[in-house]
């Protein structure tokens, strides 16, 4: 069964239709890179899947269970909505770290708040928090930031901030991790450190959807490439199929510009 299935997703802002029926699914452990020219709807797609925008049509399934249905008007409880939300993690283009918290606190704060809902929270709080902190330190070490635990985001480079935000997303152990152009706010020298982290996650079989303009990186790391154009999926296949032998004129001209 697919871990994620997106069915016929539509999104309009007022009268402009941005997503015009997106369909794709992915398997556990798979890595998809989404390519497409500016304005083709990549960010909007990620935002719809992550509940930051409400899609105007279509459904989304996780592990076969419907977590979004545009036609369903019934109000979903806040708790249920959060449970659905936590299937996913999202790494933003602009990091969006919390400036008033240290690096370590940025990573531990969400899981600590979430732990309040555990039934053993009251009796076992010390242990739970210790585990959360240990896990956070392990993740920060994995992204190469064990030296920076007590620094504040404003004291870090863009690349370091983005690595914190990746650790922060991982700390909630999402089933699927989404990246929206994780390197496009960074200098070229800093881009590589992020790409290295993502490659490392790929080795650990993290299920990921990565919107990127780095074609070579997409080819190296992704199992599958989706090429979007004007709100539809034009190509969906292996890197060889999509990048080396695109079926579509649009894809070819896009790649020609990028490579």
């Amino acid at each position, binding site marked *: 069964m697919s871990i994620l299935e997106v069915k016929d997703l539509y999104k309009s802002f007022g009268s402009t239709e941005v997503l015009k029926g997106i369909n794709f699914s992915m398997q556990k452990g798979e890595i998809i890179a989404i390519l497409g020219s500016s304005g083709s709807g990549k960010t909007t797609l990620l935002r719809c899947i992550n509940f930051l925008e409400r899609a105007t049509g279509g459904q989304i399934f996780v592990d076969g269970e419907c977590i979004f249905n545009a036609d369903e008007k019934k109000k979903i409880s806040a708790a249920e909505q959060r449970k659905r939300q936590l299937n996913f*993690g999202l790494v933003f283009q602009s990091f969006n770290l919390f400036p008033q918290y240290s690096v370590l606190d940025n990573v531990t704060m969400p899981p600590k708040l979430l732990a309040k809902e555990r039934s053993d929270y009251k009796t076992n709080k010390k242990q739970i928090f210790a585990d959360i902190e240990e896990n956070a330190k392990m993740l920060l070490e994995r992204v190469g930031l064990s030296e920076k635990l007590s620094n504040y985001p404003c004291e870090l480079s863009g690349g370091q901030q983005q690595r914190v935000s990746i650790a922060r997303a991982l700390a909630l152990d999402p089933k699927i991790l989404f990246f929206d152009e994780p390197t496009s706010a960074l200098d070229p020298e800093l881009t590589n450190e992020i790409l290295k982290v993502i490659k490392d996650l790929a080795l650990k079989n993290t299920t990921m959807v990565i919107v990127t303009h780095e074609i070579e990186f997409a080819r190296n790391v992704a199992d599958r490439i989706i090429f979007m154009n004007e709100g539809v999926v034009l190509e969906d296949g292996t890197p060889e199929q999509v990048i080396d032998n695109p079926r579509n004129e649009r894809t070819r001209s896009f790649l020609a510009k990028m490579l």
Partner: protein
Amino acid sequence: MKIWLSLLEGFEFNLMLFGGTIVCAIPLGLLITFCSMSKFKPLSVLSRIFVWIIRGTPLMLQLFVVLYVPGIVFGVPMKSRLLAAFIAFIINYAAYFSEIYRGGIESIPRGQYEAGQVLGLTKGQIFRKIVLFQVIKRIVPPMGNEIITLVKDTSLARTIAVSEIMMSAENFSKQGIIWPLFSTGLFFLAMCGILTLLFNKLEKKLDYYKA
């Protein structure tokens, strides 16, 4: 010595008015902010009109309105001039504070809320754990300015014959003694000086990160 005492007595009123306004207007302002940012249109429009009127008219006029309108229009005369002064100041400053809060809240980037949401925080947690502190950091400097203005504004209470320090000082000048006017200035200077120091300290404290 008698003159000093009388000035001090006058200033005691200024301090009371200052304290009372701070204590009441800070939360009331927050209430107005929530109203003016409410998704319920009539409420937000109404409270924005209210804020516009309060900020668009002189505090002195508002003092007279609070003092006389209840008696003349509604037949329930204002019980005391003191009370009138408190009400007018609290309403006036709540309106100013509410705008500062609103500016602070609106200056928090949407990405902070979105990050909170995708990390599974509740709306309340997003406000308390992420937004609130950043708002406080941003509003401390403008609040400092406004509060120092308040110190000096308390002297306006004399216009409705509340015996505050300026009034005492003026009475002495009428008797031909001029120095109380200058000493009065010292009271205000000292008060503003202390507040400036306090706010600078607070700003420094909040300056451990750059936003």
